[in-house]
């Protein structure tokens, strides 16, 4: 005896695909897709740090020193390191999309150009904020 009623219908009902919440775990391509979606989580942490810093800068010198001390804590550095890695992973996927959406030049050329832009901006920010200018 089964709990389920036995159907006498000859035609099946409407097709209802079964999809569970962790469908993306079953294939490497979709795991990488979800990983890319997750790159914004450490990004949000870093943005939170920036907003906190902006707030402290607007308050007083003591508050700003407090922000610098906050940013030097190991767990904050670790999460920001994660944000850095996430930004590079995001950049790789994003740079590969651009030549496909807008093929202005050979793909390899465009991807290299975008990495160069990232490198130049990073060099500029490090030189200016690091106090070498």
């Amino acid at each position, binding site marked *: 005896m089964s709990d389920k009623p036995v159907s006498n219908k000859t035609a099946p009902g409407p097709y209802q695909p079964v*999809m569970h*919440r962790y469908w*993306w775990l079953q294939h490497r391509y979709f795991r990488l897709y*979800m990983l890319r*979606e*997750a*790159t*914004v989580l450490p*990004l*949000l942490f*870093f*943005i939170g*740090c*920036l*907003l906190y*810093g*902006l*707030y402290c*800068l*607007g308050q007083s*010198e003591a508050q*700003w*020193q407090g922000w*610098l001390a906050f*940013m*030097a804590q190991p767990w*904050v*550095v670790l999460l*920001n*390191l994660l*944000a*850095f890695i996430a*930004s*590079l992973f*995001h*950049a790789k996927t*994003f*740079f590969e999309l651009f030549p496909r959406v807008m093929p202005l030049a050979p793909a390899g050329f465009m991807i290299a150009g*975008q990495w160069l*832009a*990232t490198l130049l*901006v*990073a*060099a*500029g*920010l*490090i030189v*200016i*904020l*690091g*106090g*070498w200018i």
Partner: protein
Amino acid sequence: MKIETAQPKRSDEPIWWALFSAGGVCFAVVLPGAILALAILPALGLTTGDSLSYARMADMVYHSLWGLAGLAFVAAAICLPLFHAAHRIHHGLHDLQLGGGLASKLLCYGLAALTSATGVWLLVKAWVS
């Protein structure tokens, strides 16, 4: 035969897509350098002595290029990446069968807008005073 004359409903998706793309460019081009310069190198002691001192940073954020440098940084490192993140989270919630409807859309983009406004407000408030 009835001919359809009603205008199709205009989608608001281009707005979110444009903000997502602009934020994605910022996340890929500006954020790696910003994270290195503000969070990783100073913590490792790899910057010159007083490069992040209060006087130098306040001057740079509020006064360089008539304050436009600070505004550009807030836009590129805070506001646009926030809308990028909102888009990814909104669609990620749909993928996890936790959202993706109007509620998560309002929540994600609403929080991004509110937080962006807070960032600009923090800058302008200190700049004016």
